């Protein structure tokens, strides 16, 4: 899997390159800022882009803005944003275009190497990977709308769906039976007024509703 990496800290750029290479990714370009990132993406057409939020020149949200440009110009390229802090606002921006092939993780997560690599693979395969902290923030914000109709357990399930887990993943995480998870999921669809069409599509819609975007 081909990766373009954007990270302004030399130390981390080197470290992440090694980590990704060891994890079976091919790092085709590692760049220090957003402009070079966009050029590299155009040139290499990678499978996934891993990008830091704060980069030169203003060190605010260059990474998010670059990620949005990439999402718009190359909808096929998956994007995983790394940030020192996860903020709901960045997540909603990022997810407003499309929820597939998007990741938004706390930078600390790279320390848990295998989890991090799993999340990247999930995103590269068209899934989502949202940091639990972001999801917690989104959950607070949506507490007073249709989401209130959901039971706490259903909210847990939806949260895991938003993090990009499959039904199997949710079964493992919540330590409940597979049929129970299916029941929760179908309850969620009903309560959020999502008609039964294509299941995957409904999953995305549910998550979108959940994120309020």
């Amino acid at each position, binding site marked *: 899997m081909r990766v373009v990496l954007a990270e302004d*800290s030399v*130390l*981390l750029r080197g*470290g*992440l390159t*090694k*980590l990704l290479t*060891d994890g079976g990714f091919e790092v085709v370009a590692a760049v220090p800022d957003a402009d070079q990132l966009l050029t590299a993406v155009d040139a290499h057409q990678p499978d996934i882009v891993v990008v830091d939020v*704060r980069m030169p020149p203003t*060190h*605010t*949200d260059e990474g998010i803005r670059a990620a949005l440009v990439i999402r718009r110009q190359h909808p096929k390229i998956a994007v995983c944003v790394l940030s*020192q*802090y996860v*903020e*709901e*606002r*960045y997540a909603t921006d990022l997810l407003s275009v499309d929820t597939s092939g998007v990741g938004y993780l706390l*930078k*600390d997560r*790279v*320390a*848990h*190497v*295998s989890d991090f690599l799993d999340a990247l693979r999930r995103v590269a395969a068209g899934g989502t990977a949202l940091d639990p*902290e972001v999801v*917690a*923030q*989104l*959950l*607070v*914000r949506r*507490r*007073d709308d249709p989401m209130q109709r959901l039971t706490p357990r259903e909210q847990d399930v939806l949260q895991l769906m938003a993090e990009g887990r499959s039904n199997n993943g949710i079964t493992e995480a919540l330590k409940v039976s597979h049929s129970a998870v299916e029941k929760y999921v179908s309850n969620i669809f009903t309560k959020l007024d999502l008609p039964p069409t294509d299941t995957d599509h409904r999953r995305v819609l549910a998550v979108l509703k959940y994120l309020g975007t």
Partner: protein
Amino acid sequence: MTDVRPTGPMAVLRPLSSPRAWQATFHVVAGMFLAATTGAVIWLVGVLWWAAVVSLVEGPTGHWLLPVLYVVVAVLGPAALPPLVQFFSALQRERFRALLGVEIAAPRHDPGSGWRRIFRPWAAGSTWRQLAYNLLAPLLGILGGAIVVLCWAALLLAALWADRVSGPWYALWFGGATVLLLAAPWVARGIADADTAAARRLLGRGHAEELTERVESLARSRADLVDAADTERRRIERDLHDGVQQRLVSLAMNLGMARAAFTDRSPEVLGIIAAAHDEATAALAELRDFVRGLHPAVLNDWGLDAALSGVVARAPLPVKLHVHVAPRCSPSIEAIAYFAVSEALTNVAKHAQASRAEVVAERVGDRLIVTVTDDGRGGASVDGAGTGLRGLAQRAAAVDGSLTVVSPPGGPTTVTVHIPCE
């Protein structure tokens, strides 16, 4: 340096050559001529105006152009006088500065706009005070100047008119003249001092004006301090983010890689690597919380709404959040609101035993009002032990705001922050 004081007759004569006495003399004499000129002009304007008004009232006679002229003078007189008075007062202040080294700050005047420009100065006390000085100066200034000149010239004058006295009066005549001359330095200085006192009072700023100015400058410097402290916090946040945090992430990542790679080593080695990895991850989380406590980056980029939803999300109890703050407030104000909510929610979690809380941040006109309410057991106070509310109340007060806590025993507790938001 020791001051060598001459004794004997020299001690009496010494003041005659003292620079201060001569400064005062020049000042008083210059004031005499200046006051004569400016006073004459002002009186002339006054008399012309009065004549024009009286002529108009009594019914003008003669050439038809005369009434027009009267009206012009009657209208222009009051309009022209204040600028004239201000100009003359500036000259007088310059005299004090150049000849005595006394700085008198000019009163500030608000020129107003449109037609108010003409009459606005008459509403200001400073205009009347300056006018009073310029009207009194010709009378008292010329009198004072004359006295000073007379004292200095006393011996000379006595000699010129020596033929008018004879016999026993002769000694008294010259004795008196000598006394006047010896007194001249003191008289000059006394009159200059009196003039200075009058000028400070009449040409300078009024007490209220000085206080207003002082308050304005204090408020300004206080706001600057608040901003400076805030800027410094942001700088430290950025430095930590660019430096230590990146290194720690790198360290934790390397340890993570080691942990993943060296699975074939002895349990002892694995244990050490695992402990180091956990420690690095914990340090990273701790540092992240600390840095966020300095200044959350999201507050700069996205404002209160986004930043507060982060705070609320991290609270260990359900918190409802409503934010309506548009347009945004200044960074220092947003920071106060942010940390007030953050601190209040920390207190709720620690002490209140509450089941839920609500945070509302609203902009009402040019005020930002933030309330944090919980359904806990109450009894909280700004001065309560272990609360950071005290410091936040001070920060709010520093921008002319307030932080109040209403918390009856049994609850509920409401923390309210009122801060200006311009």
